[in-house]
């Protein structure tokens, strides 16, 4: 495998690892390195000095073509989620900007991609492949969990631990000092 072919796969691997890292941690404080690692991976994958060989060049070309509609789609989706009344009041500006980008993404998709009806079978089998991979993964996780020895019942919190948990809850719930 040539250096440029390896660079494409390495970049993709780093991007997926970065995305995985970003999903760890509580929603209000994601892993600090997740997003930078994912962006680094994308940069390694897409920016190169020489044209990678086949089949990687086809992958990079397809990814760049798809980015034309995927980028507005992703940014638009994020804005819509920020603006929609999911957890908070409707925020009109991000909501409208998000929908505008989603419309742009669909227009861009139909102007650059040619959808042929005969591709439907290919889509269905690709979905089946994804489903197979996730099914095997789920079965493996179930097997691993069943093989894990059961741990004894946890003892109650000590006085020190109880105070610590209480202080964490107090901090996050922003409760003022007791009167």
């Amino acid at each position, binding site marked *: 495998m040539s250096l440029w072919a390896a660079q494409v796969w390495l970049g993709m691997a780093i991007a997926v690892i970065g995305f995985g890292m970003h999903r760890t941690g509580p929603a209000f404080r994601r892993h600090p390195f997740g997003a930078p690692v994912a962006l680094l991976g994308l940069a390694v994958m897409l920016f190169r000095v020489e044209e990678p060989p086949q089949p990687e060049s086809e992958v990079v070309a397809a990814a760049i073509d798809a980015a034309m509609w995927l980028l507005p789609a992703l940014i638009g989706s994020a804005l819509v989620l920020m603006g929609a009344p999911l957890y908070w009041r409707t925020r009109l500006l991000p909501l409208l900007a998000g929908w505008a980008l989603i419309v742009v993404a669909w227009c861009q998709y139909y102007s650059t991609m040619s959808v042929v009806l005969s591709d439907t079978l290919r889509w269905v089998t690709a979905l089946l492949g994804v489903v197979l991979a996730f099914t095997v993964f789920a079965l493996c996780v179930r097997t691993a*969990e069943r093989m894990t020895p059961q741990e004894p019942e946890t003892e109650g919190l000590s006085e020190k631990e109880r105070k610590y948990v209480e202080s964490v809850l107090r901090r996050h719930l922003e409760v003022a000092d007791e009167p």
Partner: protein
Amino acid sequence: MNPNLESVISAFAGSAALTSLFIILALIGTLNPYHRPAIPMLGASTIILASTYLFAKTVGIPADSVALRMTMSEGVLALLDILPIVFLMSTFMFLKASLRKRPEDPLLALLESEPGPK
């Protein structure tokens, strides 16, 4: 082999292999002391190898590293093909989310009535 059938099998093998690769990479990215990733990684690796073998047999090439790269490339192309379907479903969900009315929640109302964090 019929080119249409070859394309369909390639899409199946490629998407299964690439999804399994993503699973392995996600397991690496989320490693923690409570993880038991050995069996899931073994399962995902088996899917990758089996898919590569299936792809190589379908296309008529030896099942080596070139076949592995070609399978993964087919996977990227197949997943890019089905992304618009995912986006279509997401668009409908976003539409539903944008038009919904936030349910009245006494706790949220209490938060709204108080000044925000400093």
